[in-house]
């Protein structure tokens, strides 16, 4: 996977002006086209009716597996659990070496070193949540220290949460500057940087208009990826809110030439769900986004369902949970 050195704000001068002040940023974000909820949901539902069969399904399953950020974010996480998950990520289906590896293992910062070691040489990335995940309720220095720790421990990618309180109270520039600061904290001494995924917690932003604004705010601030949710609230990724992220990434690319990745997270458990998201990528962002460099699933139980469907396609018979590994 090529390294990424996007410079989002370099797109156009107009967009740079948008972040010149709190007032300018507010005007810009509130000037974005509105979102009609029913229409957005209808479009997402329509894309969900695509029927993906046979060769297309095989392609989609392998693609989906390769896009998974296999995640464990529990208070009860241990080194053993993380090593076990890492092994699963490297070799998802021991019965079939052709099975693609997942994109990344996603853990808390204190588990990054463990994961890094377990994944050494595999090409599977280590992603770490940071910035006082999942609530994001900590002082900025704490969030930055959290980020730097994870990067120093070897994280390839940082999944930060935005300050929803600041966003909802209209302090957009504060959110913007926090993202920029975290982005700077992703830098490594050798001049490279961890890729930054910005989590909105869409379920807490409540309206689609807010989600669209959050997307642009994050993309302007330097996000490499925009991500729906933490998986820790009642409603996480949904087809419509992910579609909205995709539309934002599409429009940002059209405006600036900069490609931004998209990551739905939480609540995607079945192959059928995953394929619906890939259809959305295909028909909204196009095939350029159909790689794990630009699209990820934040998921854990999804992987085994994909593996069972994969076995079904390979053997012609339905698989069962005893034929995939529990890690």
């Amino acid at each position, binding site marked *: 996977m090529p390294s990424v050195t996007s410079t989002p704000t370099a797109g156009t001068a107009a967009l740079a002006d948008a972040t010149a002040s709190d007032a300018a940023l507010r005007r810009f974000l509130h000037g974005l086209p509105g979102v009609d*909820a029913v229409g957005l949901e209808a479009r997402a539902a329509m894309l969900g009716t695509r029927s993906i069969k046979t060769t297309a399904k095989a392609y989609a399953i392998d693609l989906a597996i390769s896009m998974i950020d296999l995640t464990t974010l529990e208070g009860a996480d241990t080194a053993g659990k993380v090593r076990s998950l890492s092994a699963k990520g490297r070799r998802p289906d021991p019965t079939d070496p052709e099975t693609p590896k997942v994109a990344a293992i996603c853990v808390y910062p204190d588990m990054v070193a463990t994961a890094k070691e377990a994944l050494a040489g595999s090409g599977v990335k280590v992603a770490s949540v940071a910035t006082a995940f999942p609530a994001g309720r900590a002082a900025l220095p704490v969030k930055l220290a959290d980020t730097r720790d994870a990067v120093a421990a070897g994280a390839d990618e940082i999944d930060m949460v935005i300050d929803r309180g600041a966003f909802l109270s209209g302090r957009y520039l504060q959110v913007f500057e926090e993202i920029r600061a975290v982005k700077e904290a992703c830098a490594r001494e050798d001049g490279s940087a961890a890729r930054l995924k910005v989590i909105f917690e869409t379920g807490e932003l409540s309206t689609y208009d807010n989600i669209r604004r959050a997307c642009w705010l994050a993309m302007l601030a330097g996000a490499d990826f925009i991500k729906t949710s933490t998986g820790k609230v009642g409603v996480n990724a949904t087809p419509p809110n992910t579609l909205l992220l995709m539309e934002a990434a599409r429009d940002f690319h059209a405006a600036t030439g900069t490609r931004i990745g998209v990551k739905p997270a939480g609540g995607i458990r079945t192959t059928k769900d995953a394929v619906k998201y890939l259809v959305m990528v295909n028909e909204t962002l196009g095939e350029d986004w159909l790689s794990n460099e630009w699209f990820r699933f934040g998921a854990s139980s999804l992987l085994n369902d994909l593996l069972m469907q994969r076995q079904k396609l390979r053997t012609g018979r339905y698989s069962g949970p005893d034929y995939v590994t529990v890690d």
Partner: protein
Amino acid sequence: MSEQDERATKAAGKAAKTKPKAKGAKAGAAAEVTATGRLSVLKTYKLFVGGKFPRSESGRVYEVTDSEGNWLANAPLASRKDARDAVVAARKAFGGWSGATAYNRGQVLYRVAEMLEGRREQFVGEVADAEGLSRAKAAEQVDAAVDRWVWYAGWTDKVAQVAGGANPVAGPYFNLSTPEPTGIVAVLAPQDSSFLGLVSVLAPAIATGNTVVAVAAERAPLPALSLAEVLATSDVPGGVVNLLSGRAAELGPPLAAHQDVNAIDLTGADAELARELEIAAADNLKRVVRPGLTSDWAVEPGLERMLAYLETKTVWHPTGSLGAAGSAY
């Protein structure tokens, strides 16, 4: 010819014609010499177009008599061009009248009733002459006509609730149907009821926000032309009602074929003319009210004459912006 000249000529004609019959109660209020020997002043009846009272552009008039053949007046014999001008006036008035609040239209219609009540005696006389009725019977007609204006005045701000409403569609949409006026209604007024009948076909059309070009009962146009004077002093905007006197068979075809007329009431046409006009009306798919919709003008009407000139507009809009992000509420 100046107005004065014309007037003089007509008066002379009148005197000549009426002299032989100028006797008895039926001699016509118009021409009667009073007991004191004073010669009454006659009214020149004119068309009512765009709030003004023009003569026919054709310069034609026709003789109007009472039921016994006594001369009453010379009414303008309106032409195709008068009909055309009336349509232009009606179109010009449509935006304002259809856009007026229903409350305002109700007040205007009620004002018509008030004005009419004040001129009750005049109309009783004219209806008695026009239809050969006793004064008592004519008074019943006039009273019913006044009450009909009141009835329709009350409908202006109610018919939308009766004819429209919210539709419970199976989806996240607000869905509302509202009746709107069709546009310009051409009316061939009933031949059998020169005043109550006219009011009964006119009032529902304008109560619902349409504008009207009406052709008065051919042989008895005078109550209609006098009604114009009431309308002109009742806050009815000019052009909302346009009244023509003349031949249904002459004015019907241009109105039925007119591409800027949206509906036609054929009540005053005989079966053959009605069929011919309905065919002509198909060219721009006018809404057609066939003769016979109302059989008894004295009976309280239903909604049919209002519904005939209302289009239902249904507006959809998505709902569901609450919880749009799928958050838990």
